[in-house]
């Protein structure tokens, strides 16, 4: 199963993913206990690709990637994130 990870070179630490994940009570995004207190994703809690709730609110292109392939998930690619307001809620 593919997993999500944060690219710290591109992440702005705005915490929109943290807020979105916590709102759903998944709490997969957490503040790591390291000197920079950066955000990380716990693969044991993250439901990606079943859940993509954080992706449409991330404003930093390329900052969330599929860990196994390095493929950017921001902005959300249509084959992964299929919830769009455009015309219909697919």
């Amino acid at each position: 199963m593919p997993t999500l990870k944060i690219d710290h070179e591109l992440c702005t630490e705005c915490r929109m993913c943290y807020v979105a994940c916590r709102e759903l009570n998944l709490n997969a995004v957490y503040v790591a206990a390291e000197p920079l207190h950066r955000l990380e994703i716990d693969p044991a809690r993250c439901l990606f690709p079943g859940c993509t709730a954080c992706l449409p609110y991330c404003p930093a292109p390329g900052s969330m990637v599929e860990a196994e392939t390095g493929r950017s998930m921001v902005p959300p690619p249509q084959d992964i994130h299929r919830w769009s307001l455009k015309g219909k809620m697919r």
Partner: protein
Amino acid sequence: MHPILEEFLNDWVWPTAPGAGGAKFRLRLTEEKCIPGWQGLVTSTVRELEAGQGAGEDWKRRLALEGYAAEGVQFSIKQMSAQLMSISLEDQARWIDIQRMRARQVWDECKHSKLHVDSLSGHGWIKRERELMNDVEANFQPLSSYFGQGMMFAHIHPLARNAQHYFIEAGAYLTICIYERMVDDRLVRHQHLSQKAEELMHFMEGKYQIDTYCTTPATQQIVEQTLDWVLGFFQGRV
């Protein structure tokens, strides 16, 4: 539709969280009110830059002295500060995420101003920041919030400001995208490009909060009323 706006819509506006309770409301606001406003903003910005570039170098100085985003940063700082202070103690837990976002944005907006001053001083258009206070052009501020009387208006509810986050911050992002394509001045580009991610993040706050929290007629009405006020205010300027 301008390709910059089309790209913005496809990448950042249409994607939403599965089952987001306020999404249909956001879709209606987007299609009925925001897109016509954004289209007008894009068109007028492109036209303004084309006219300026055709008239020599002074347009950069004139635009710079008018302020970053017409000093909408002042508008935002006051609203952020007001909202941080105006949420009652019993509501603090409920709106804590919004308050955290607002607190961060106070810093973001201050940085916008600082970068703007860097650009002005880097060009030699001012020697010290203090000079700006003596220059009527640099105090260009048509917004009624400048002297404070408007700053509480939009805070009849903690969600009200999302109308501005969703519409105006998107406009700032779109403007920066246009500058990125049309302006080659090193300092002007620096000032704008460094804000690109932040403006998009502020837009995302509005998008997220509308999707997540604006799920009832009462909360939707608050946002729509504020958006109507914002659109009416900016209609004369775009």
